[in-house]
């Protein structure tokens, strides 16, 4: 299959993730949308890597991105929980202490 199909798919996924990030209010849902965006990029890299004589480079790139996403999710969840502990809410509408 030509690579353009994969690129279109991953771009769609990326846009879905971005849309979710911009519209969702729940902190955990936003985290999931960010994961979707990261995985869209992963898909893109893997698809592109098949077009080149040395696909291992792309594969390793993706492995590192996966590790990075895991680290980010771990710290992110910890931060969300730490916030939830005091405010009892993970709705981002309530996060309005700091503005302007």
């Amino acid at each position, binding site marked *: 299959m030509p690579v353009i199909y994969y690129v279109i798919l991953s771009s769609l996924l990326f846009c879905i993730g971005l849309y979710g990030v911009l519209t969702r209010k729940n902190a955990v849902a936003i985290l999931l949308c960010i994961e979707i965006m990261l995985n869209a*990029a992963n898909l893109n890299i893997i698809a*592109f890597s098949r*077009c080149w004589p040395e696909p291992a480079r792309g594969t390793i790139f993706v492995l590192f991105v996966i590790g990075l996403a895991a680290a980010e999710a771990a710290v992110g969840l910890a931060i969300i929980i730490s916030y939830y502990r005091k405010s009892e809410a993970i709705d981002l509408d309530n996060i309005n*202490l700091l503005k302007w």
Partner: protein
Amino acid sequence: MNTGLIRLLPELVLCFGALLIIFIDIIYSDIKKYWLGFLAYGFTIISFICLFILGSNKTWLIVQGSYAVDGFSIFCKALLLIAGSVIILFSIAYVYRGMEYKAEFFALILFSLMSMLVLVSSADLILILLAFEFVSISSYILVGYHRDDMKSREASLKYFFYGAISAAILVMGFSFLYGLTGETNIYLIARALGGKTQLLIPDYTLLALLGLVLVGAGFGFKIGMFPFQMWIPDVYEGAPTPVTAFLSVASKSAGVALLLRFFFVVFTNNFSINWSIILLVISIITMFTGNLMAISQNNIKRMLGYSSIAHVGYILAGIVGIYHYKITTGYTGATFDVSPILIYLTAYIYMNLGAFAVIILSEDMTGDNIPSYAGMSQRSPLLAGMLTIFMLSLAGIPPTIGFIGKFFIFGELVNASHYLLVILAVINSIISVYYYFRVVYFMYFVPPETEKKGFSYSLLTMGALWACFAGTLFIGISPNLFIELAKKALIGIDIIR
């Protein structure tokens, strides 16, 4: 042994230091924590010495070409280490006074500093990504370090979301660059984009533009350029003050250095898209946003946050100037002279660190609000005087280092005959005088509301403050030696031939 690996010594020292601090904290859990702070400070100094010993103007590409140690990266690393060590000095007293998890604070600062050093000399997409995220993730934790302070948590949450989104956007941009060229090394990508090796599709404009915009957005989040600047004031206000200083100085400088290397290496040689037009518009809007929003601020940390956005605007203007100068003169050499930006970054680091040192010292007595600085000239003439000098410097008034920085940026713009941009930048500087001098006005001309007692100085923070003060004035008065140094820090474009 691999011969080039010794060049990694400054980074390795910092990493070892951070691990050692965690280890000591586990084994001897009843140790006085400020010793760990001194240990962290010592490791930054050792790292600096290693950098100094290994420093040379030659370009080394080590670790399979993914790590570039050249004049530019060594200069930036020196700046970052100075900033980091000064911030550790600030934070020893601050952390000791009231923070949980004291040891981890220093370990995180060291880890973050290490990843910044990696960031400024990484020349591979994977390494850039990892270092970029490492800086971000340690900063998320540092920002939320006041766990009982609602503002700190909220800042941490906001910073995390913005940072995570920026990382995702950055990876997407990298994926397009990788797909187009089949390489992850930025020098090889530059060669491929310059037409020396085959690309995925011959007409690369669309894919390259996607990569350029997405990568620019990802970096833009880190340094706070216009459409992505929203997080800066919130995070700066909510974070513990030494962490605010760290973010505004070290993190931002590392981001700017990364942006410089990446854009000047990847998107210059025979690259058909003239991105400086986009950057020109962004830099103007960034300047105006920062300066206009700063006027109405009452919280001094928030005001400095907006002012740092404005400073990013000037830096971007400088980048535009350098790039345009190259285009107009048809320069095709192998190196790029980015000394105006480096001088500006140095100025920014010294004066901002100084301002934050004063804020940290007076925080307990006055709080963060600008009106509460009223009558500071009577309560502490020393701090008031110093803060005045730093505000002068931030506004870019001679004989301070801030003036030298602005002078070189504007000079570069005049060289590139960007007169409109110069005029706009000067207008912005004039706007900025208002809100910087508002602080001075409150300190000198408004009497204090109630009789308050004087200040108690922490010796270490005072030392750091004096160092920043000396740097601000000394380089401002006799900048020649320093400019010589900055002129040697060149970015090599076409290292791999």
